[in-house]
């Protein structure tokens, strides 16, 4: 099936999310849609999938114009979508999710479960997914959930499959398997639209690349195009992909975490006997797939949760058992993983958000009263220092873009002298410019002699920042490795494989993306061999 978008325009109030976008997806090709967060990729796909009504432009299927009122129409036309946030009901089984909306029924409207199971098994077997039709979604790892989404789309006879940031939640090995699945689908004649902002993946898998910036198509590229070139097309200026930083000079280990164990209400060991040190002037990155105890670990360190056992010492002072206020007072700066819900108060002004943790102290308060003049003065200073792009310090935090919200959070946390900085997912969902800024500030904080803990699920970020990497899997520390460790080794460790075993396996068997890394390692990457080519031998293994 050939799919064509012509002149699609979609605006939300003053924001032009899509500005006359043209896109052609040929039958059986993997077409990558590359763009930064907020460039308008997801909006475009939601228009295509019938979730949004375009203001202008048309969609053509096999050269015939079509109009989609809802996702039902898009599905009927053979378009399937795997959303970034999975559209699966967690308390339903795989089979129930797959048939939802087009259920096979017996008399009286009762669902024909054997038929539903058969549909799942058929596709699952065809692609070697190994998905149990009767498993509940909430019990499945994200990688498997994603396969369920793919089964769901294919069971509706999708000829074009849209994958929206499919690798965001996967380990490198799972990503590698997904790439295999995408190739398999392509061979069976399905076209794929692959939406991403990860250059490495695009080069590994795409047949053609369309780059979107600020709602407009700014160019198309071949997969052989170098990463630097793709990045500058995506961002609109030349980008330095690495972080400029000097070698760490670790000082005294002032942060000592010992035997920390957190058990949640359901009895699951979210953090299991975790011990580590962080030294002054050192960035420790905690790597791991989302949901392996990182959130709980950081929340315990801040005092938001209490551990069952263990201790956290900062400069020789025990933090466990203290209130959050005491922990902050001890000099802990905390950047929460979800800035929009935990980092800022959306309906407070930027100035107010900048003093959330300082409002009771001089100079912002005198007695019971706030001193608005001091608050505003502080805000003016901070937004200048942290380059927060806003019309006014009185604007609500909700009016800021993700990048600027994060700068507000950083500005607040770094505005007092820190003895420890904990930043969870500091750049999730940010554009490249903001990522550079945030990374630079974090490295600066390290160079000031602050111990820094970064929690990130993005290996790129971990590798860019870390002086030392702690890999977590199911609440445990799988390994403590130096920064710059091979990404395949890290990926295996993120799946729970111990360090020495991971090194051995990674040496035998490089993933497509890891392979691309090796290839990119020499200073001048050879333009003739594409990442996809280097990856193919691995499939025969």
């Amino acid at each position, binding site marked *: 099936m050939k799919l064509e978008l012509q002149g699609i325009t979609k605006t939300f109030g003053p924001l032009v999310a899509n500005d006359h976008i043209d896109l052609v997806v040929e039958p059986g090709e993997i077409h990558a849609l590359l763009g930064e967060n907020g460039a308008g990729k997801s909006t475009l796909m939601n228009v295509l999938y019938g979730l949004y009504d375009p203001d202008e432009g048309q969609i053509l299927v096999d050269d015939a114009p079509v109009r989609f009122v809802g*996702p039902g129409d898009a*599905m009927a036309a053979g378009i399937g979508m795997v959303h970034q946030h999975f*559209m699966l*009901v967690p308390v339903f089984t795989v089979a129930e*999710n797959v048939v*939802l909306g087009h259920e096979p029924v017996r008399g009286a*409207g*009762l669902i024909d479960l054997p038929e539903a199971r058969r549909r799942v098994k058929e596709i699952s077997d065809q692609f070697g997914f190994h998905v149990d039709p009767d498993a509940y979604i909430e019990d499945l790892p994200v990688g498997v959930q994603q396969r369920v989404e793919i089964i769901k789309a294919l069971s509706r006879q999708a000829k074009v499959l849209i994958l929206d940031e499919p690798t965001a939640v996967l380990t490198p090995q799972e990503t590698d398997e997904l790439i295999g699945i995408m190739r398999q689908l392509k061979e069976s004649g399905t076209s794929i639209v692959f939406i991403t902002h990860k250059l490495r993946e695009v080069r590994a898998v795409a047949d053609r690349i369309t780059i979107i910036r600020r709602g407009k198509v700014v160019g198309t590229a071949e997969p052989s195009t170098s990463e630097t070139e793709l990045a500058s097309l995506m961002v609109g200026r030349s980008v330095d992909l690495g972080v400029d930083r000097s070698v760490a000079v670790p000082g005294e280990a002032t942060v000592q975490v010992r035997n920390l164990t957190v058990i949640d209400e359901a009895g699951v060991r979210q953090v299991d006997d975790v011990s580590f040190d962080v030294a002054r002037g050192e960035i420790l990155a905690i790597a791991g797939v989302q949901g392996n105890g990182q959130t709980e670990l950081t929340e315990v360190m801040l005092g938001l949760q209490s551990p069952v056992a263990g201790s956290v010492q900062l400069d020789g002072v025990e933090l466990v058992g203290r209130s959050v206020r005491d922990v902050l007072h001890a000099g802990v700066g905390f950047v929460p993983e979800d800035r929009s819900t935990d980092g800022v108060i959306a309906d407070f002004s930027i100035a107010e958000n900048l003093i959330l943790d300082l409002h009771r102290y001089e100079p912002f308060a005198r007695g019971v009263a706030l001193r608005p003049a001091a608050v505003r003065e502080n805000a003016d200073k901070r937004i200048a220092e942290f380059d927060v792009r806003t019309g006014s310090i009185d604007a609500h935090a909700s009016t800021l873009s993700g990048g600027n919200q994060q700068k507000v959070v950083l500005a607040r946390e770094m505005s007092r002298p820190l003895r420890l900085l904990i930043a969870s997912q500091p750049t999730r969902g940010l554009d490249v410019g903001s990522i550079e800024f945030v990374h630079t500030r974090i490295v600066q904080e390290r160079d000031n002699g602050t111990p820094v803990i970064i929690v990130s699920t993005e290996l790129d970020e971990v590798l860019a920042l870390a002086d030392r990497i702690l890999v977590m899997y199911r609440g445990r520390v799988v390994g403590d490795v130096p920064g710059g460790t091979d990404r395949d080794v890290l990926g295996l460790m993120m799946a729970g494989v111990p360090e020495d075993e991971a090194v051995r396996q990674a040496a035998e068997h490089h993933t497509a993306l890891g392979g691309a890394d090796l290839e990119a390692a020499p200073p001048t990457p050879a333009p003739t061999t594409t990442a996809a080519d280097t990856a193919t031998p691995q499939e025969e293994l």
Partner: protein
Amino acid sequence: MSAPTIDAPASARPASPQVLPPIRWHAPIAYGVVALFGLVVFGLLGPSGETSTFGISTSRDFVQFTPFSVPSKLTATILCLGALALAGVSFYETRRREKAGVWLPITYGVLMVFAFLVWAVAGKDSALPLTGLLQGSLFLAIPLVFGALAGLLCERSGIINIAIEGQLLGGAFLAAVVATLTGSAYAGLIAAPIAGALVGLLLVLFSIKYVVNQIIVGVVLNVLVIGVTSYLFSTVLKENPDTWNNPPGLPVISIPVLSQIPIIGPVLFRQTALVYIMYVVVIVLQIMVFRSRWGLRLRSVGEHPKAADTVGIKVNRTRLRSTVLGGAVAGLGGAFFTVAAGLAFGKEMTNGKGYIALAAMILGRWSPKGALAAALLFGFANNLQLQLSIIQTPIPSQIMLMTPYIVTIFAVAGLVGRVRPPAAEGIPYTK
């Protein structure tokens, strides 16, 4: 694809001292304290030399059983010792970090209730009619069952229905008026759901179309229905009760054979049409909500509306339908207050039953059979209070009046444990 992953790590991990979460002793301690209290008050300090008499059949039964008597003090002591033993089991299992089955609280509850009954009726001449106790429990549970089913129909689709109280009251009112006007109790039974559905329609319109907070709309609707029915009651119904407010009652239908089964026959199968409808509704909903296409879509809309939308299910339309249906079910339950027993409508006669129904829905974990069980428990507590105030027990009647609500609070807080309401409950769906 050959992917070497996942399975290796477990063995490779260094053994570490197992840190375990602190044990929660609340439940066994509560069991123990209550059983000890019962042992002392009902047993050891109980009236010696008295007997307690229980009747187990009604005068109209096919098989007649003579009432039986037991020595009060001894029986209460034995029952409480049994409960104490169960508390011991609970201590033991908690210590071993095992979870006792649901049989434990149920058996414990039955033992303690009987110990209490033995103590309460000690030395009374008249027998406490056990069959009547059960029959009355079922009777009082009727509006709660309908109300709880209404609540779950709405909440499974993501709309919080606080307006059950208003729907019951509206149903009671319209049933009384229509039954009086037509002279047919069955006409009232048909009219009742219409009133409930109208309240449900208002609820869902404000919730979906105007995106008003659903809890606020629900509370306001309750007040509105109380206002409207009270106004009409004092201006129209009271002026001319024979024309407007003198409904005939539903006839009791005995199912042949089944109603002759000892003890449970008369309880379950000598009832009005409303009760038989209730059986059908519970069974049908239990099957349809969990096993049909309609139910799957209903639940998907309440759990993850966006996922439902992306597979072409109309979220708000589904919510509208199920909320109106839920309102109709609650309205039908409202008929209980008037036509079921042939009673005249009275101001605010539902008396908070809608809220108790909501509690029954939560206690029943948003499932029809659970709602039925929870409603029966509340009905039993309510009826126990009625029965005991008739035979004049040593307990002040005000305290007895509180029992159903105390049971409700303890049941919802203690027995429910961690329940998971539909994930999208109360959240409006807008694209």
